[in-house]
C-alpha cells in the first residue's frame, strides 16, 4: 500500500481517541445515533449475541474451523462510520486497478473500511426508480424499506451468534432496490477496501428486487496483508420477488491476516431466479454461510462457488438449499483448488420440506489437491421430507491426474503449463455457469496470475 493511501485511510482514526472494542458501549453509541426501531433491533441483537455461546468444534457446523484458535474478537477495534469522499488519486493500486476493469456497470459503490465513500448510478437507471445507496444513509431516506427488510426475514439476529453480532454493530453497507418490472442491464459493482490491521468491520448488503425485475450485483472485497488480524463481517440479504432475476457475486480477495465472515441468505419467491457465485481467493480464514431458500413455486437458484487456496489459508463454506415450495430447483457447484498447506471445508445440505413436491435439488463439490500438505473436507447432506423429488449430491477430492498431464504434454505443453491449464479449466467450469460480463475475465485473470506466481 502506498504512503498516501495509508494517510487517506487512516486519517479518521488519528483524529479521534482510541477506538472502541466490541462491547455494549459500542452498541449503545450506535443506538444513540439512529432511529428507535433500529436501536431496538441493535440492542435485541446484542442480547442474542451475548446469550449465544461461542461456537466450538463440537458443533457440526464448526467442526473444522476452531474459532478459539483463529478468531481474536477481544483484540479487535471498531472504526465508527466516517463521512468520506473517495479519491482515486492516492488510493491503493490494487483497489484502483480492480475498479478500472469494472467500468461497464450500471452503478458503483466504493466502501472504505466499512463506510460508503462513493456511489454512482446511471441516470437512466435511477430515473426508473432503482436505488443504490449507503445503507446508513438509507436508514433516513428509506426507513420503511429498511425496517421491513433489515435483519428481519432473511438474517434476523436469531439465526446465529455472528448474525446477531453483525445486526448489533453494523456501521454501513449497501442498499440496492429495483422496482417492479425494471431490468438493469449492466451489473452493479461494489468495491470494498479494508486498510487497518486489528479492526473489526461490520457491513450489510440488502438487495430487494421487486416483481419481474432483473439485476446483477458484484461485491468485491480487497485489502493488503495485515500484520494483525482484521475481521470483516458481511451480512447479505437478498429478496427476489415473484419472477425477479437476481445474480449475486462475491469476490473475496483480501490479504493474509484477514478473517472474512460472510453470512448470506437468499429468498426466492415464485418463479424467481436467484443465482449466487462466491469466489474466495484471499484472507487467512474465510467462512461463508449461505442459505438459499426457495419459498415460492417455480423458484430457481444456481449456487456456485470456487476457491483457490495456498500457504496456510483456511476456507469453510457452509451452504443450505431449502426447498419450501413445489416445482423449485436448486443446483449447487462448489469447487476448490488447494496448494501449499491450504484447507477447504465444504458442508452442504439439501432440505426438501413437506409439500415441496416436484423439486430438483443438486449439489456437487469437487476439490483438487495440488500439494501433499493441502487438505479438503467435503460433507454433503440430504434431508428429504417430500416424496416426488429429484435430488443428488456428489463430492470428490482428487489430485492432478497423470493421464491428463501426459495428454497435454504429448502436445508439447510443459508440465507447468499443463498443470496450469488443468487447474484453470477445473475452476473455470464454475465461471462458465454464470457468464456475467467482466466477472469471468477478472476471475480467470486472477487464477492465471496466481498460477504463474
Amino acid at each position, binding site marked *: 500500500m502506498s504512503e498516501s493511501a495509508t494517510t487517506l485511510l487512516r486519517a479518521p482514526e488519528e483524529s479521534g481517541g482510541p477506538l472502541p472494542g466490541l462491547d455494549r458501549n459500542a452498541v449503545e453509541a450506535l443506538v444513540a445515533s439512529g432511529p428507535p426501531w433500529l436501536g431496538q433491533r441493535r440492542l435485541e441483537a446484542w442480547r442474542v449475541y451475548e446469550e449465544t455461546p461461542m461456537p466450538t468444534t463440537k458443533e457440526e457446523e464448526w467442526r473444522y474451523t476452531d474459532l478459539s484458535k483463529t478468531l481474536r474478537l477481544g483484540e479487535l477495534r471498531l472504526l465508527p462510520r466516517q463521512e468520506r469522499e473517495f479519491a482515486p488519486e492516492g488510493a491503493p493500486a490494487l483497489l484502483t486497478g480492480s475498479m478500472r476493469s469494472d467500468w461497464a456497470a450500471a452503478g458503483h459503490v466504493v466502501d472504505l473500511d466499512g463506510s460508503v465513500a462513493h456511489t454512482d448510478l446511471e441516470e437512466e437507471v435511477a430515473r426508473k426508480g432503482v436505488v443504490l445507496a449507503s445503507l446508513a444513509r438509507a436508514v433516513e431516506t428509506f426507513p420503511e424499506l429498511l425496517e421491513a427488510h433489515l435483519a428481519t426475514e432473511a438474517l434476523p439476529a436469531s439465526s446465529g451468534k455472528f448474525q446477531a453480532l453483525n445486526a448489533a454493530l453494523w456501521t454501513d453497507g449497501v442498499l440496492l432496490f429495483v422496482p417492479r418490472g425494471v431490468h438493469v442491464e449492466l451489473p452493479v459493482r461494489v468495491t470494498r477496501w479494508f486498510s487497518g490491521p486489528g479492526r473489526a468491520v461490520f457491513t450489510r448488503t440488502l438487495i430487494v428486487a421487486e416483481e419481474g425485475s432483473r439485476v446483477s450485483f458484484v461485491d468485491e472485497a480487497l485489502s493488503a496483508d495485515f500484520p494483525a488480524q482484521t475481521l470483516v463481517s458481511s451480512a447479505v440479504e437478498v429478496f427476489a420477488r415473484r419472477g425477479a432475476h437476481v445474480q449475486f457475486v462475491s469476490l473475496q480477495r483480501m490479504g493474509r491476516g484477514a478473517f472474512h465472515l460472510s453470512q448470506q441468505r437468499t429468498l426466492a419467491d415464485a418463479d424467481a431466479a436467484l443465482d449466487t457465485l462466491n469466489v474466495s481467493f484471499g484472507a487467512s480464514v474465510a467462512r461463508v454461510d449461505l442459505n438459499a431458500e426457495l419459498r415460492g413455486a417455480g423458484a430457481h437458484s444456481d449456487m456456485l462457488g470456487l476457491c483457490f487456496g495456498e500457504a496456510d489459508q483456511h476456507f469453510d463454506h457452509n451452504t443450505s438449499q431449502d426447498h419450501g415450495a413445489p416445482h423449485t430447483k436448486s443446483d449447487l457447484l462448489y469447487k476448490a483448488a488447494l496448494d501449499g498447506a491450504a484447507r477447504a471445508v465444504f458442508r452442504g445440505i439439501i432440505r426438501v420440506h413437506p409439500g415441496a413436491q416436484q423439486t430438483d435439488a443438486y449439489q456437487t463439490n469437487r476439490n483438487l489437491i495440488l500439494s501433499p500438505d493441502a487438505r479438503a473436507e467435503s460433507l454433503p447432506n440430504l434431508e428429504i421430507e417430500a416424496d416426488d423429488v429429484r435430488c443428488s449430491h456428489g463430492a470428490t477430492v482428487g489430485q492432478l*491426474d*497423470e*493421464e*491428463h498431464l*501426459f*495428454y*497435454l*504434454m*504429448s*502436445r*508439447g*505443453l*510443459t*508440465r507447468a*503449463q*499443463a498443470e496450469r*491449464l*488443468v487447474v*484453470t*479449466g*477445473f*475452476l*473455470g*467450469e464454475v465461471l*462458465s455457469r454464470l457468464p456475467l460480463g467482466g466477472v469471468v475475465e477478472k476471475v480467470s485473470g486472477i487464477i492465471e496470475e496466481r498460477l504463474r506466481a
Partner: protein
Amino acid sequence: MSKAPILSLRGLCAKVVDEDVEILHGVDLELIPGEVHALMGPNGSGKSTLAKVLAGHPGYEATAGSVEYDGEDILDLEPDERARLGVFLAFQYPVEIPGVSIANFLRTAMQARLEEEEELDLFDFQDELLERMDLLDIDPSFAERPVNDGFSGGEKKRNEILQMAVLRPRLAVMDETDSGLDIDALQVVAGGVKTLSAEDPEMTVLVITHYQRLLNYLRPDHVHVMVDGRIVRSGGAALAENLEAEGYEQFRASES
C-alpha cells in the same frame, strides 16, 4: 537413394514402472520419412505400450534397446520435448479436460513451441486454426468446446486429427484411431490423415489398427504384426489382407 530413417527402434524392451513384468520383448522397427506403416496384432500384444513408450508416457520404462528419432536417442526426453520435436500420438482413449476449450489448449500448445520470450500472435493462430478446421471440414464452433468433455467416440477421434493438423507432426502414431467408429466417422479420420499426408509428403505415420477398412484408405507401405511384445512378421499391404482372412492364430502357433 535411401533416406535416413525418422524413427528407428532396436531391440526395444519395456515394462510398466514399478512392476517387474516386461511387455515389449525386443522390438525392431524402421520408418523412413513419408512412409505409412501399419502395426497390427491381437489385443494385449503391446501395441499401445509401444505407442506410449514412443510418446514418453511416465508409466512405462524402456529396459533395453534404443529409440532413435531423427538420429537422436529420445528415451531420456520428456513427453513435451518429444512433441516439440515433431512426435505426435493420437490417443486410443483421449482424456477429457473439463473447462479447457480446444482452442485454448491448442493455443497453449503452439505457444509452448516458441522461445520463452516470444508471444504467440493470437490473430495468426486464430486464422491458422480456422484454416485447419476448414481443411478437415470441421465446424468452427467445435474449437470452443471443452477438450473431449462429453464428446462421442467419433468427436474424440476428430479432435485428435484436428490437433494433428494444427501441430503438423513429422511422426504421427495413431493408436486405434479407427476403433469404435461408424463408417462416416472412419471416413473423416482416414480422409483427414490422407489430406495431411498429401499436404506434407514427408510426414510419417504409424497406424495401429485391427481393421483392414482403415488400411484400405491409407494404403500402408509396410505392415507389421505384433504378438506378445514382439514383431513376428513384416510385409507389404497384402499381409494385412491375409490377417483379415486368417487371424493371428497362425503366429501364436508358430511361436510355441
